[in-house]
């Protein structure tokens, strides 16, 4: 599995590019964090990588094939989008939410059968949420919802999951639970592109990280190498201190004067 953006440029409104010449790639087992300020283009980048939005120029390649040429259902079996958790309007059960991941495997007129429910059970097992299958999705915690959405991506069959701000709305313990699940799945060969507002999470959980600043990838590499005071200043516009441990940078703090 290899998902790559090659020099992609995207604009919602002509003349105002949200992504400029962005190049990055993930392979099997990679956990890549995309860091950047609000409005820097992170979610748009995920949409482009998922094939949901088509860049104006450049291309997104999935195993060497241009993603907009792959049939939509085929693409959905290989790349999954894990959105930010939100309060859904209808009280689906956790199982029903995860079951929606089976959509690309089912024809327009088909309804899910035993095989699909088995895939749901395997996905819930993989994130440790099997016991909540019959619970109502709106009544479980934010951390559990995040895991359920990961499970939906797994039920989809995707080997690459694109996660939008999985740490938002979660307390540190549930953030850790979610990223521990990500690390375990990555060791099984799944790959992840994760957007985050938390450079500290990149230092803790990422193999690689990239800073998206004003639509451009400014730094890319090992988190301990790119999370520097200079990069943080240019990404967020304020001063930071990087706290260094024995193995290198461990955490960042905004500089309070």
């Amino acid at each position: 599995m290899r998902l790559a953006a090659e020099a992609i440029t995207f604009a919602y409104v002509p003349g105002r590019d949200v992504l400029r010449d962005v190049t990055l790639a993930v392979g099997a087992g990679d956990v890549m964090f995309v860091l950047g300020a609000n409005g820097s283009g992170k979610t748009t980048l995920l949409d482009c990588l998922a094939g949901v939005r088509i860049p104006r120029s450049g291309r997104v390649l999935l195993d060497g094939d241009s993603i907009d040429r792959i049939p939509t259902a085929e693409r959905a079996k290989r790349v999954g989008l894990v959105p930010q958790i939100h309060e859904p309007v209808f009280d689906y059960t956790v199982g029903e939410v995860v079951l929606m991941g089976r959509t690309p495997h089912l024809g327009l007129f088909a309804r899910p059968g035993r095989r699909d429910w088995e895939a749901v059970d395997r996905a819930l097992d993989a994130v440790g949420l099997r016991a909540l299958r019959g619970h109502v999705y709106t009544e479980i915690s934010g951390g559990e919802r995040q895991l359920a959405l990961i499970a939906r991506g797994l039920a989809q069959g995707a080997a690459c999951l694109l996660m939008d701000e999985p740490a938002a709305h979660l307390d540190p313990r549930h953030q850790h639970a979610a990223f521990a699940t990500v690390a375990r799945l990555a060791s099984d060969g799944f790959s992840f592109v994760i957007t985050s507002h938390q450079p500290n999470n990149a230092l803790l959980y990422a193999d690689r990280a990239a800073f998206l600043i004003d639509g451009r990838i400014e730094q890319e590499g090992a988190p301990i190498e790119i999370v520097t005071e200079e990069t943080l200043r240019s990404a967020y516009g304020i001063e930071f201190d990087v706290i260094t441990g024995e193995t290198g940078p461990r955490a960042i703090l905004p500089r309070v004067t």
Partner: protein
Amino acid sequence: MTTKRGRTAWVLAALAPALFLLALLIGRYGIRIDETFRALFAPESVSDVIRALILRVRLPRALAAVCIGANLAVTGAAFQGLFRNPLVDSRILGVSSGAAFGAALALLVSAGTIGLQASSFAFALLAVGLVCLIGLRFGSAALILVVGGILVSALFNALLGLIKYVADPLSSLPAITYWLLGGLSDVRWATIGPLLALTGFGLVFFLVVRWRLNVLTLSESEATALGVRIRGFRTTVILVGTLLIASSVAVGGIIGWVGLVVPHVARAWVGPDHGRLIPVSIGLGAVTVLALDTIARTALPSEIPLGILTGLVGVPAFFLLFLRFLRVRGEAR
């Protein structure tokens, strides 16, 4: 959980034919049950009056009630999912306002029943067509369609007011007013052909795609990432739903509340999964409108307009459901 819900659904399915028979049986002209059966299955063996009453009056009317109830409920359920808003009903895209204007226009020029139906149907489609044009031009996000629906509804309501203003207060104005209240008293075989055909087509469509309707409740990018061509699917659902509502309104006039309340009852009963919600909404909508129409034509010496009755039942039913919803959330005593 599923089996218990499944069992109740079967009870409903068994109840429906009994209710249908009852609707044929009772009326101002009393007909015995054996006469009803014979009129249906051996029409030569009953008197002309009974045969005509059962086969030409009550049977088409009961069928129309079943179709209209099913159509309003299934479209309401699908649109509530599509707009991710449980307070939406089948009228959200201006279909009823367009239909009302079309009917009033036909009544103003005394166009006859077929003309009325055609005009009502055409303007219902025109109203939704305008909303969809707004969506196409400015991006088909759900919010744009909702606002478009409000605007188009308001436009046709204003035009309806204009027609009422110029209508003859002794003949066409009362006819318009009465039509707007909704009712099935004029239903004959000759007028329900399009309704039956479109209902058959539309219900089959919603039944076969019913599981996939769940995906419409997700955001556009989520649905696309799941491999669904969301805009095409959404447009198709809107189109088929509009055909169902337009054909129903053309026959029965404005019958409110069914499209809002029935899907809620169905959801409270079998949950939000459209795989179960759609068939249960169809059955519940059909049974509800058939029962209310039977009451409408038999309860009082003169017929009660069906739209009034659905309102009288729908409002308290919706209030109770809403209270239940708030209590579940701990937001009401």
